[in-house]
């Protein structure tokens, strides 16, 4: 059973560019959440997708957008990249309806903005 997978593993972009990160949830999971983790900090919630809709959103600007596909996979798009967007981007999947905060995280995508 494959866990959460993310691509690419690493990415280098320059300021002002746009980036798309991809995530495939764990088998049987239909909810995908995205987090940003700066060096030395805990992960920060960006948004969550369920049934192809954004269900919750954290305190991130509109430059951060996402999408969920019918097969539950998801994309995170970041426009007009800033140096401060350099971070590890984590995707997590879960199955709603359970009284649980158990989410399964992928290995992350390391984004470097120069």
């Amino acid at each position, binding site marked *: 059973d494959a866990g959460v997978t993310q691509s690419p593993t690493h990415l280098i972009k320059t300021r002002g560019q746009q980036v798309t990160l991809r995530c495939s949830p764990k088998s049987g999971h239909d909810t995908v959440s995205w987090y940003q983790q700066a060096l030395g900090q805990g992960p920060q919630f960006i948004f969550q997708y369920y049934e192809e809709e954004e269900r919750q959103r954290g305190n991130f600007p509109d430059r951060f957008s996402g999408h969920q596909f019918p097969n539950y996979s998801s994309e995170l798009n970041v426009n007009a990249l800033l140096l401060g967007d350099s971070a590890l981007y984590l995707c997590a999947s879960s199955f709603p309806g359970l009284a649980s905060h158990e989410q399964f995280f992928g*290995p992350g995508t390391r984004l470097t903005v120069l």
Partner: protein
Amino acid sequence: LAKTTQPISMDSYEGQEVNITCSHNNIATNDYITWYQQFPSQGPRFIIQGYKTKVTNEVASLFIPADRKSSTLSLPRVSLSDTAVYYCLVGDAFEGGKLIFGQGTELSVKP
């Protein structure tokens, strides 16, 4: 989600029991307490979740006093591979959704 406070770092030696305490004074009635573990350059991993008293699984134990204003994650007989950052989270598990991570506790296990 309720604010949590935990030590920034802790040191231990192999074979010892490690207890990491988290304070959450404004925990709500419906809130659960959840702990995650994170190794460098990896995503966090769910360890344990509880509501009251004591919860134990194959990895750790979680102790929650009656007032639920704090909780203690107990790792029995740690090894070098337990060196990681441990996060305490508090929130309504029925809402699921976003997890609010603090800075976590960086545990260093020495030989």
